[in-house]
């Protein structure tokens, strides 16, 4: 028997016996979050704004991202250039807008890849166990032993610069932690009675993994997804900051910070504006992920 107070609370929340319909599905959980956690809603809106800004960048600004204006070099913010211009006279706001394309892509694409790979490997390792488990987890251990920045640097060194390579590098860096979390989740689910029930009915291994394990891992994976996006964005900006990621003249926030750094003491906004943009996006994703965790998966710890 369970703790009485807890029992009563859940009883009231779920009202088992006399409510029809009203399933507590993902959608309802999201609604509940929206009601309880205004910050998460604001964050979602901020993210949406950044996405819109990235998509409609050409419409939103009259300048091109590499349009130089040598006369107006390093201009201070003004009505014409809201955030001033950089050392080649390019409009900073324009470059920020175009930069958000890269940052958002870099946040989403490698995270999707690493989530998929991590989920498949984690579920296989956890459910199949034995040698499969040992091999996959040792590999993950090796990946996790690297300081992620250095590993990303080496991969970039091996693959060369470019957006696609950044995707690959960041995905390679982050799949292992996903696999580890999904595996531990799988191990718990594997011991659960409903999986045993499925086994007792003769459901095949593959089906159990697809129908029972995966859907039950999903909530924590959604949370993980929203929390891994910001770390990917941070990694890319750090790489670009070191000059290892996106190459000139493409606009990337990290690169803009790097180029603006030499004017830190005279024109601080050159490096500050992109830094703040990074922080805003990352913050928004973190707040959203946090809110999601509260409703979807109270047990997934901060990592």
């Amino acid at each position, binding site marked *: 028997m369970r703790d009485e*107070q807890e029992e009563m609370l859940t*009883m*009231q929340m779920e*009202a088992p016996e006399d409510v029809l319909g009203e399933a507590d599905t993902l959608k309802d959980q999201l609604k509940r979050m929206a009601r309880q956690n205004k910050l998460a809603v604001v964050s979602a809106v901020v993210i949406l704004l950044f996405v819109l800004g990235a998509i409609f960048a050409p419409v939103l600004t009259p300048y091109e991202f590499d349009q130089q204006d040598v006369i107006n070099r390093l201009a201070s913010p003004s009505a014409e250039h809201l955030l001033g211009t950089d050392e080649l006279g390019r409009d900073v706001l324009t470059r920020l807008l175009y930069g958000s394309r890269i940052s958002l892509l870099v946040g989403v694409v490698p995270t999707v890849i690493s989530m998929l790979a991590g989920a498949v490997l984690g579920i296989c390792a956890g459910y199949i166990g034995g040698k499969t488990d040992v091999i996959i987890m040792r590999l993950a251990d090796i990946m996790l032993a690297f300081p992620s920045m250095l590993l990303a640097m080496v991969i970039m060194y091996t693959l060369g610069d470019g957006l696609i390579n950044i995707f690959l590098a960041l995905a390679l860096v982050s799949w292992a932690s996903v696999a580890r979390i999904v595996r531990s989740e799988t191990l718990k689910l594997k011991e659960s009675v409903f999986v045993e029930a499925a086994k007792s009915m003769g459901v095949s291994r593959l089906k159990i993994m697809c129908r029972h394990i995966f859907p039950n891992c999903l909530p924590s994976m959604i949370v993980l997804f929203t929390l891994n996006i910001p770390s990917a964005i941070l990694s890319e900006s750090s790489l670009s900051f070191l000059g290892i990621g996106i190459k000139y003249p493409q606009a990337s926030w990290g690169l803009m910070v790097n180029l603006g750094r030499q004017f830190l003491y005279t024109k601080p906004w050159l490096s500050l504006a992109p830094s703040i943009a990074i922080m805003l996006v990352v913050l928004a994703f973190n707040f959203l992920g946090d809110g999601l965790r509260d409703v979807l998966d109270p047990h997934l710890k901060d990592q």
Partner: protein
Amino acid sequence: MDEAITLSVRDLSTSFFSEKGEVKAVDHVSFDVPHGSIVGLVGESGCGKSMTARSIMKLLKYPGKIVGGEILLEGRNLVPLSERDMSLIRGEEIAMIFQEPMTSLNPVVPVGKQVQEAILQHRKISREEAKKKVLHMLEMVGISEPEKRYRCYPHELSGGLRQRVMIAMAMICRPKLLIADEPTTALDVTVEAQILELLRELRDTIGTSIILISHNLGVIAQLCDYVYVMYAGQVVECAPVLELFDHPSHPYTRGLMDSVRSLRRGDERLSTIPGVVPNLLRLPQGCRFAPRCPMAGEGCRSCPPELKAVSAGHLVRCPYGQR
């Protein structure tokens, strides 16, 4: 009354405030615990019996809160006491043991230390002296080789031993009142019998009054002097144990007893109580048991009944409650 009352609970109401509104988990519950007696609270899960116990200890978890009534420990009201004053009473004057001996002990501290902590909290004695008392107490609750067990961690002990450790911890300051919240539910029958025997012995030797909370009528019958039957947050019937088992008067009590007795007899068809416990957020207007009651009439559904005496010391919350 000539017998001394250890604890008297008057109109205790405890609610917790959930998203969907106030849940009255304990609703105007009153009972007395005479000195040296064992009082039973019985009911099914969710009836508010554990919440009552936690309210007495003032150990309610967020968002639970006492909203009314008095808890008088030898005449002193505990409800307005601050957390600091309450901590002087917990363990010293009222102690509690919990349902799950597995999770109720700190996994990273040796059990002896945990018992010792209880006495050091309230007595100004040296550690050696405290340890001596702990060893003596461990022996008293039937733990063999107390020296060896003293250093054990909880995971190294069986469920029965852990519950004994919990009892030792609760009794070491010789409290006036022990609250035992489903102390044997998680244990096997043979161990349950041992623990019940131990509780009875401790009451006899130390003279502690006990509130025993259980869903098991057998346990109640074996141990208690007075019994309070709870349903949906209210006391529906109370009586001395013999009276209650001989003449159960509330339809719910009778339903419960019939359920257990028909099972013990091995009837062809078991008697049951139809339906399920009501949602405390949407309680029926009249009697809370009316939707499941075979005798309920129109009056029951519209107007909530009061607790009324049917004989000396036997109160029933049902207009049809007859002997």
